[in-house]
């Protein structure tokens, strides 16, 4: 015979949130591991060119960046709209590249000095004259490993 159970008033047990911090911490550590801190604030406008064959940049600590492009609108009053070079956080002249590279290289560990790579992050509309001058300057200080920053092109 079916026994009709008397309906009990059941109470929902309180949801335990004690593991929530752990989960969030795990997320946090994941993000800390996969991301890298923004290296600098851009003072120039850079839309990287697109290329079909690109490689991922490895060994971030060995890469030094040279930014090339037109100054952002807020700097155009004082620096004009001509293509400029940015080293670290400041605008620089092409002649300053050599001393910048030498300084950066001497700050590295000795075994890493030969592996230093210079990444040229230039806007896609930069005239080649500027790029060639940068390359000349890099050659002079024997910074021969360079990378042209470019984004993967999906198709033509």
């Amino acid at each position, binding site marked *: 015979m079916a026994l009709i159970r008397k309906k009990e008033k059941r109470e929902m047990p309180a949801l335990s949130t004690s593991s929530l911090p752990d989960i969030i911490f795990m997320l946090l550590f994941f993000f800390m591991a996969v991301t890298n801190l923004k290296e600098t604030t851009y003072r120039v406008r850079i839309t990287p060119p697109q290329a079909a064959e690109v490689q991922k940049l490895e060994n971030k600590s060995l890469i030094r960046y040279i930014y090339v492009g037109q100054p952002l609108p807020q700097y155009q009053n004082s620096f004009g709209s001509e293509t400029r070079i940015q080293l670290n956080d400041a605008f620089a002249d092409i002649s300053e590249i050599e001393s910048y590279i030498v300084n950066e290289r001497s700050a590295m560990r000795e075994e890493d000095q030969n592996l230093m790579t210079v990444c040229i992050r230039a806007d896609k509309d930069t005239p080649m004259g500027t790029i060639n001058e940068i390359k000349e300057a890099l050659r002079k200080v024997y910074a021969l490993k360079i*990378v042209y920053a470019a984004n993967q092109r999906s198709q033509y």
Partner: protein
Amino acid sequence: MERKKRKVGQINASSMADISFLLLIFFLVTTSMNVGTGLSRRLPPPVPDQQKLKSADVKKRNIFILHITNQDEIIAQGEKTDIHKLRGKVMQFIKNENNDPNLPELITENVPSIGKVAYTKNHVILLETDAEARYQTYIDVQSELVAAYSELRDEFAMKRFGKHYHLLREDLQKAVQIIFSQRISEVQAENIKEKK
């Protein structure tokens, strides 16, 4: 005096989640997720000034001249070329399948772990850029050149070993790299004018 035993109250950990959320959001904002990508290149070491004008001794048939003009036109061997057709032209030049006397000479040489192979050992791709050419065009050309070389390597690996290049053993990959080594030389427009 007798001390009263006190019970330690439980620490309320419910705000812990909020704190770590804050940290998480902070990191999300300050970091950039994108992995940098680019084309790596090796620059030639600097040459002393007195040697600058002395051009390297390369036979004319071994040189493939690519010129990017101020108007972003690509001129390959004196002929205006579309960027899409560039890869085929470069590949044809590097391969020289039919031993054409106008294309670079084939030199038979012993390559470690492959044996005797005839390949265009002395070919040079000369890339000239005018000062007003756009960087994008230059990168397009560079990437097409890289693509041409990797396509040639893959083709060779398929023909010889029936495998894709990236699946080959490491020593074979090295050997294929020797056969199709990137020989790209860059000249600035000013230097060429000096020569003329």
